[in-house]
């Protein structure tokens, strides 16, 4: 009798489904050719650029300021690889709709847990990769270029770019939860980012905008930054992320898969 009662009332770990989706998605992203292409491209571009600048300093004696070159590299990572980050995030849910999602969402998992698992996995993978690459770039720059970086400035610069990237990732996952196909999702996300960037460039100077913040990166890396302004920028980015995620969560929890 006890055995029957035990079988009928097994203990369930409430957050295990979320964790399972998170882990599976991280593994899936790390295995995807898009991710590997992105990392390879970023590493090759960074190494090539740093060695080129180091050669200029070593052979020609031209002073190469680390803050300028690292800021350019960080900008390239954000802007240059934005298309790849769009592909990585905008297909996170749509690519599984109809087939794979059946196998997952028909189990004991809620839509909320599935969305959160996917979102957090993409955030962890992309931001983790970006921060690893960013820190490796900073350390390389310290050894190879004329060192004018400050530790706190470097950390603040990485945090600001990470906040911007987090917004892009969240928008990507949200679009993926709303769109019906991956191609449509990528197109919508890319258009949204272009339009938002264009409109924000018209904001008065006292408001933080992505392009102005990225332009100030060399000074931030040197330690010359307005902490309140940057905190405001990061705050707005995270708020936009939060709103986008809430919308995606609410929409996905009510739609057909």
């Amino acid at each position, binding site marked *: 009798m006890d055995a029957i009662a035990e079988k009928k009332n097994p203990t369930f770990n409430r957050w295990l489904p979320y964790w399972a989706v998170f882990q599976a998605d991280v593994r899936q992203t790390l295995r995807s050719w898009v991710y590997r292409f992105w990392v390879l491209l970023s590493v090759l571009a960074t190494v090539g650029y740093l060695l080129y600048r180091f050669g200029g300093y070593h052979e020609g004696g031209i002073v190469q300021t680390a803050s300028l070159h690292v800021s350019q590299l960080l900008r390239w990572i954000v802007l240059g690889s934005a298309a790849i980050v769009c592909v990585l995030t905008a297909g996170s849910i749509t690519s599984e709709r109809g087939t794979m999602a*059946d*196998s997952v969402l028909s189990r004991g998992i809620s839509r909320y847990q599935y969305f959160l698992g996917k979102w957090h996995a993409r955030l962890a993978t992309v931001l983790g990769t970006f921060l690893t690459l960013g820190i490796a770039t900073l350390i390389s720059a310290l050894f190879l270029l004329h060192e004018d970086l400050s530790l706190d400035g470097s950390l603040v610069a990485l945090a600001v770019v990470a906040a911007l990237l987090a917004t892009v990732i969240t928008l990507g996952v949200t679009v993926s939860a709303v769109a019906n196909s991956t191609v449509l999702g990528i197109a919508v996300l890319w258009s949204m980012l272009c339009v938002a960037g264009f409109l924000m460039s018209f904001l008065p100077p006292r408001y933080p905008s992505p392009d102005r913040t990225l332009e100030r990166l060399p000074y931030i890396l040197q330690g010359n930054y307005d902490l309140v302004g940057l905190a405001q920028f990061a705050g707005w980015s995270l708020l936009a992320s939060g709103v986008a995620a809430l919308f995606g969560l609410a929409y996905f929890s009510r739609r*057909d898969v």
Partner: protein
Amino acid sequence: MAEISSSNMVVETFKLTKIYQNRQIALNDVTLRLEPGCVLGLLGSNGAGKTTLLRLIIGLHRPTAGWAKVFGKFMTPNAAELRRRIGYIPTNPQFPRGMTPITYLDYMARLFGLPKDVRKPRLASLIRAVDLLRVSGDSIAGFSNGMTARLAVAASLINEPDLLIWDEPTHGLDPEARRSMLELIKTLSREKTLIVSSHNLSDIDEVCNHAAVLSHGQLIYCGSLQDLKGRMRRNHFELDLEGEQKAITKSTTAIRALPEFKVVTLKHRRLELYLQEEAVGAAALANVLMTLNDNKVTLVSIRSVGQQTEQAFLDLVEKEESRGFARIYQAEAA
């Protein structure tokens, strides 16, 4: 289906309707009740709405109108606690790349929130039970249809569900694998409630005790399989005869003159009879037997032709389609 209170029903739907993007009516006003221990065979041609109904019951889709209750509670996309008691196999199960049967079943068990000390022994037992032990460390990508079907079965049983929903479980299987699947369904039906959708009517006939027939998104029959067979028009018979050919030919001519039959054909010593719509089978056959006796022809065997479930299904669909506008009256549909 039976006089059981609503809260005790395993599955209950009420006026369940699904319209996709205001363009396609996939399911129309489906009301059914499934009591514990039932093995329901879901029948219908392609596009009849079988998969849509199953996806609504499991919460993968949201109804446009009406509702679906499972274990007495409303099914929604977020009703994870209800799905913990359901084992589902989709039509063509897909598996994540790079996984082995062990990692896949572990993943499925974690999706049900099963702790390690429960899921590990269970997945090991299931892998053994579905005969995948030798390939338990191999990538699923290289599996045959039969192996993926067995893995999907194991995944649907990992949570020890009370309700199993299997969408065309014998689809794409070879005869041996199909036979094993049907035997498994029979075994499981002793302690679980099942909904099995299939194109193959003989499968349904073999393993199910109840049937639901969908036609163009509408439920045209829901009840016991026996009742469904009882609705069949038995109007086609074959008789194997023995005796002199001249006597057999003479009997055939006499039978052709009987008003109860619309077609009578003789092929060698086999007599095929098609009854008129309004004819009474027993009386007509009695006349045939008397005619044969009068001509000293021996009857070797007599049988009703056609698979019974298949014929009953086709009769139902044909009848439904012939009703035209009258089908809006629900009373007649039942």
